[in-house]
């Protein structure tokens, strides 16, 4: 027992001793500190008997702390620099005003009003303005498409497939019949149509070409925020901009070609036919034709992916069966023969003017009117064309593989007058806008805007007057049909403020053609056909 006690006592003593030594060392360190600092500055006068060992640790600690602070400070400075540069860039660099690829004006600084402040539009508008008009926007967007987006994954299979939007197998879906047509569900910021058409050859043409866009509200990135306190998105497709209805947001890129996946009419195709039947009933003396145009979905999907789109041909056939005294023009077969030629744009949701030529040929045959050879046209090639599908998909596969946009311009002189959508304010224009004065080689830039009525008078004195009701696909028909009728009136189903039947009678039409792409015929746009007759 006593031994144990002794042991523990001596241990305690030893401990105390150790503590004492430690404390002594600490004191010594404290006393030594200034000496060490002298030693760094003035080595010769420094005493050597300073206990350097523990001091080193202290110095190291200090050094590390200084290092940590230095790293943190560097971080703060780097961030400060980035935020500062961003501030200068966003505030003082020239704000962009329009986007050529998106074919729209960018957001403008909002005007203040009490009402706009109260409902939040004013403040949001300011934020939108700064976000939307960043200097060098299109270069930055191209950088995203080229360098960042490809990091998400790989293209699929040998055909280098990218899917933008949704798709499903139309052959295996058990609910296909109950589906609303996906063609109607346009959820894209589709190309906003041109509002003014530059008069070719004039000084102001290039300037006005830059104004051929409609301002759309920029869409801020939707935040699926944990709040769940954002407003529900619009569910009513009819509320969407009518200009949109000719394209779907489901796009497959195969072999560097963008293809909008046709979702199927799901019954709407027969409704379209019924609307046209009504026109025929209202206008018994007028020849009524329907030439619904297939999209590239019908011709360029490799077999492996065929089922991802519904059959446009089947829908056309069903329309054909439902027509009563409306003449069905088979553009599908006409185009099918020429699929190895560039009849569709690879980068745009439209066709190419060559496709329009072949379709127009089929219509001219059906209508029994003359139709000039391709040699009667001046071929204008606009190289480096990247169309709307790039804007929708932001895919570098499209932006890095531009195509030629080829226009066929009638060689003879034609008198073209454009009116507003109420058939007022006539203005003489060219049949095709002069590419020399165009800001970009876009589809709309070449053919002009949708929201107008165009009237072409030609030397073809066959006494036939044609009214075309169309979507933007139909714009390309005007130059190639111009010499087949004495008069042509080109009207857009979406931008028409008159009663269609009265207008057709007023201009003395002998023929009436409905020509639009499949999406417009079975999607939301078809309702305009009905509405135009009942205005």
């Amino acid at each position, binding site marked *: 027992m006593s031994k144990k006690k002794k042991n523990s006592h001596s241990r305690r003593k030893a401990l105390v001793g150790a503590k004492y030594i430690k404390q002594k060392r600490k004191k010594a360190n404290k006393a030594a500190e200034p000496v060490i600092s002298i030693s760094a500055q003035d080595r010769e006068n420094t005493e050597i008997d300073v206990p350097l060992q523990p001091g080193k640790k202290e110095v190291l600690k200090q050094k590390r702390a200084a290092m940590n602070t230095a790293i943190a400070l560097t*971080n703060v400075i780097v961030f400060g620099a980035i935020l500062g540069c961003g501030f200068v860039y966003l505030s003082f660099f020239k704000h962009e005003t329009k986007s050529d690829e998106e074919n729209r004006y960018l957001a403008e600084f909002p005007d203040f009003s009490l009402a706009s402040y109260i409902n939040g539009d004013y403040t949001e508008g300011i934020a939108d303005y700064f976000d939307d008009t960043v200097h060098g926007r299109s270069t930055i967007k191209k950088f*995203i498409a080229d360098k960042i987006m490809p990091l*998400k994954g*790989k*293209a699929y299979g040998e055909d280098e497939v990218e899917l933008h939007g949704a798709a499903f197998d139309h052959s295996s879906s058990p609910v296909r019949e109950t589906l609303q047509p996906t063609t109607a569900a346009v959820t894209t910021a589709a190309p906003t149509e041109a509002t003014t058409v530059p008069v070719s050859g004039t000084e102001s043409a290039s300037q006005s070409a830059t104004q051929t866009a409609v301002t759309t509200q920029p869409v801020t990135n939707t935040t699926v925020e944990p709040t769940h306190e954002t407003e529900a998105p619009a569910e009513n497709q009819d509320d969407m901009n009518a200009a949109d209805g000719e394209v779907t947001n489901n796009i497959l890129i195969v072999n560097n070609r963008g293809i909008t996946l046709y979702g199927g009419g799901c019954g709407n195709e027969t409704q379209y036919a019924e609307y046209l039947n009504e026109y025929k009933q209202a206008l018994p003396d007028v020849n009524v034709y329907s030439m619904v145009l297939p999209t590239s979905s019908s011709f360029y999907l490799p077999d492996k992916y065929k089922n991802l789109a519904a059959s446009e041909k089947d829908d056309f056939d069903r329309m054909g069966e439902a027509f009563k005294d409306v003449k069905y023009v088979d553009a599908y077969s006409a185009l099918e023969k020429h699929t190895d030629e560039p009849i569709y744009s690879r980068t745009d949701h439209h066709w190419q003017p060559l496709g329009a030529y072949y379709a127009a040929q089929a219509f001219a045959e059906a209508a029994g009117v003359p139709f000039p050879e391709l040699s009667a046209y001046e071929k204008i090639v606009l190289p480096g064309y990247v169309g709307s599908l790039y804007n929708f998909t932001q895919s570098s596969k499209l932006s890095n593989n531009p195509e030629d946009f080829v226009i066929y311009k009638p060689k003879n002189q034609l008198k073209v007058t454009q009116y507003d959508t109420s058939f007022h304010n006539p203005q003489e224009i060219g049949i095709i806008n002069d590419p020399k004065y165009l800001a970009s080689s876009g589809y709309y830039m070449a053919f002009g805007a949708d929201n107008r009525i165009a009237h072409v008078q030609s030397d073809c004195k066959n006494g036939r007057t044609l009214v075309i009701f169309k979507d933007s696909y139909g714009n390309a028909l005007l130059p190639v049909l111009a010499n087949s009728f004495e008069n042509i009136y080109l009207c857009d189903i979406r931008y028409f403020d008159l009663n269609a039947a009265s207008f057709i009678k007023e201009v003395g039409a002998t023929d009436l053609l409905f020509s639009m792409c499949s999406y417009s015929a079975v999607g939301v746009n078809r309702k305009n056909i009905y509405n135009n007759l009942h205005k």
Partner: protein
Amino acid sequence: MIFSRLFFIYLFLPVCLLTYAAARGIKQKNTVLIIFSLIFYAWGEPVYVLLMLFSAFVNYSAGLLIGRYRGQKGDTIATASAVIFDFLMLGVFKYSGFIAENVNALFSCSLPVPDIKLPIGISFYTFQTVSYVIDCHWEKVEPQKKFSKYLLYLSLFPQLVAGPIVRYSTIEKEIDDRTITVADVSYGLNRLALGLAKKVLIANQLSLIVDNTLGNIATSTTVGAWYGAAAYGLQIYFDFSGYSDIAIGLGRIFGFHFDENFRHPFMCKDITEFWQRWHISLSTFFRDYLLYVPIFGKRRKYGGLFLVWLCTGIWHGASWNFIFWGLYYGVFVFIEMQIGKKRMKKIPVVIRHIYSKIVIIVGFGIFYFEDLGQLGKFFRTIVGIDASGLIGIQDKISLTNNMYLLILAVVCTFPVIDGIKKLAGRNYAAKSAISSAAVVCSAILLVLTSIMLVDATTNPFLYFRF
């Protein structure tokens, strides 16, 4: 105003930070923060900012009354009135439409369904006011005497709109006394960059997958539905935890230390653990203020449990699917309670992981579909009863097109940064190498995020839920 836009990052924030740095003394700094917080909130809610101020005033006054009548009847009355006021406010602005619709449907009457726009962040700040009042009542905190300080707590813009639900006790001391070190600011900025990157680089991109899969459930394959729900879970995680990162980071820059809101929830082995890691500030709120409310008598353990889960569901939104979602988790937590912790641990880890991930993924499916018809279709699709096949070529294309994004997202659900820090251990050189690398990485993330935000304004695939 939301964090993930250029206007906030490069205009609002620099001006706010500079003003804050220029302000001398805690009083000035607090004033700067209140002003910027009110501007921040009023930017999106020019009118409802008044509602927030009113709510702040009512609860602040209740706090004062509780302090004055401590232990007396007045204390209870003030507490009860304030809590009732808070929930009434939430009820009117968030649930009145939902309640009216359901009453109409149930009793086939035609009450007018009020069309009230939801004030941003009301669920978050109301819970903060409730927690404050109850904490005052329970004498956990001293009632704040100055309105401006209480307002600072409530309106502090980093956490005002989307949490975390910060308790008054967390920042009580820091309102009056806080030191901001360079290290704090540096940490805060890194956290900000990380949060923005989570939201913009990962969540926003995942949302495209979700729109195209769950958004088209009518034609989805079985794999497509699972893929979509999993992507949605990841999206919500990166969106929400990114937001929390930004909040915590900004808070730190201003000298506040908020609690963590997420701790890698997908690492969980069971559902109970999931909720200990997911939206922690909400689950702890319910745990502390609701779970042991003595309204169920002896059965309060289970009664309280289901009440908590019911409330968790309702809190997320005025829609039936959120209620089902909450109860759905309640059922699994209940089952796990019945099995018991010890026996749960005996189940092989792999099986527990698989079980919990399946439950969570299906849970996010419920969370997504507000339309119950579509929710039913989702359930049928994931079990293969009513699907357009098991897997389609569109699924394969999408999986391939988004392969690296998905891998990155999954990897980032693990504590990667903590792991790297752990690797360095006590090696100082390695540690400083990591913090130096963090400087570069954060800068790259911030620049990348900013570049991506240039395009976010015209994201061509708008978010339309059917």
